[in-house]
């Protein structure tokens, strides 16, 4: 079944208005696959019928936006950003800031990224005082992050077993993150289109797999807001398929083993 163009338009407009995320034509499959479970649980015969009921019922809008904006997530997603954090970013920040590190994990979803950052600190820099601000648009994913509870399926995804037994405790059906890691992370609701969150200036901002959803002008705005809360010498980590090229020439791309880091160019201060 293919989605009727006006149904797709309706969803794309709704999502753009609420989150600035751009769903271009060609992303119909994404709308279908993300909304299929909602359609099924609402008893609709298909996604098309579900969208018709969403158009008639404002109270369903939230869950549609959430279903389309929540990032798929796993522990240590893509691996190399956490190696870059350990090998480059933290040692670099320590020479400038001593024993303190401030991190912003933007679009953190249900918390796997900020807790993976916290585990990297706990494993390799136990003396470091790290504070991680984790933000997302969706209250429900933030609630899970704050609770620090993950199902068996969720801890299976990308979390090395030695870290699972060290930093989590099984409580009935869920695994709960240790107090040590939780004390490093603060979850806050935040829209990337608004003023940046409190808790900065940040030595590093994780902004991964978010820019891909935005148009160029929004990308530039988001990145400029990120720059305004970056500590001197601070770094930005983007997703593997993202870059600032063609977005804004104030950013310098610095290749590091396995990927790249971004920082504002010298002389182009905010």
């Amino acid at each position: 079944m293919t989605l009727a163009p006006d149904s797709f338009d309706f969803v794309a407009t709704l999502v753009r208005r609420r989150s600035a995320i751009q769903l271009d034509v060609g992303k119909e499959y994404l709308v279908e696959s993300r909304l299929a479970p909602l359609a099924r649980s609402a008893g609709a015969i298909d996604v098309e019928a579900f969208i018709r009921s969403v158009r008639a019922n404002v109270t369903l809008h939230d869950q549609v936006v959430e279903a389309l904006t929540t990032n798929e997530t796993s522990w240590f997603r893509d691996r190399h950003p956490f190696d870059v954090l350990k090998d480059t970013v933290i040692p670099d920040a320590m020479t400038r800031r001593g024993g303190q590190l401030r991190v912003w994990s933007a679009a953190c979803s249900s918390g796997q990224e900020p807790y993976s950052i916290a585990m990297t600190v706990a494993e390799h820099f136990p003396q470091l005082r790290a504070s991680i601000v984790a933000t997302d648009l969706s209250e429900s994913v933030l609630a899970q992050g704050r609770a620090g509870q993950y199902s068996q399926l969720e801890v299976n995804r990308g979390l090395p077993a030695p870290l699972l037994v060290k930093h989590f405790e099984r409580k009935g059906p869920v695994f709960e993150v240790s107090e040590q890691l939780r004390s490093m992370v603060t979850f806050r609701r935040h829209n990337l289109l608004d003023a940046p969150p409190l808790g900065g200036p940040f030595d590093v901002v994780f902004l991964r797999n978010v820019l891909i959803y935005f148009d160029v002008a929004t990308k530039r705005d988001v990145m400029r807001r990120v720059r305004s809360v970056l500590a001197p010498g601070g770094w930005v980590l983007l997703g593997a398929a993202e870059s600032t090229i063609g977005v804004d020439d104030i950013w310098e791309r610095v290749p590091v083993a396995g990927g790249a880091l971004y920082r504002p160019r010298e002389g182009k201060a905010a």
Partner: protein
Amino acid sequence: MKALVIDDSRVMRRIIGAILTDVGFEVIEAGDGQEALMRLEQHPDVRLCCIDWNMPVMNGYEFIVATRKRPEYRDITLMMITTEGEQEQIVRALAAGAHEYVIKPFTADVIVDKLGYLGLLDAEVHA
């Protein structure tokens, strides 16, 4: 690379075997720990064992203990794949020498992802 899948259920052996074959492994099978030790004698080039816990004759935990006593097997990566999900059991298996632990049910990408950070994926095949 060669992998040994150790499970008393043929269905599970086939499921795990298919995942490993997809990412370029040559897969051999055993129905219990004892048979697995025999297979290791025949195939000294096995690099990965995927091991169920509950099996007749010799269970997966006993197999890990037996394997870790043999210096010639120290380069083999041992991954438990089991329904035993208690924290205590995971700790026991890791302490005995397992490198990874997957709780059933699982999806293929969970296994593939773990193989990735264990350094067991041939980049070309996987890409």
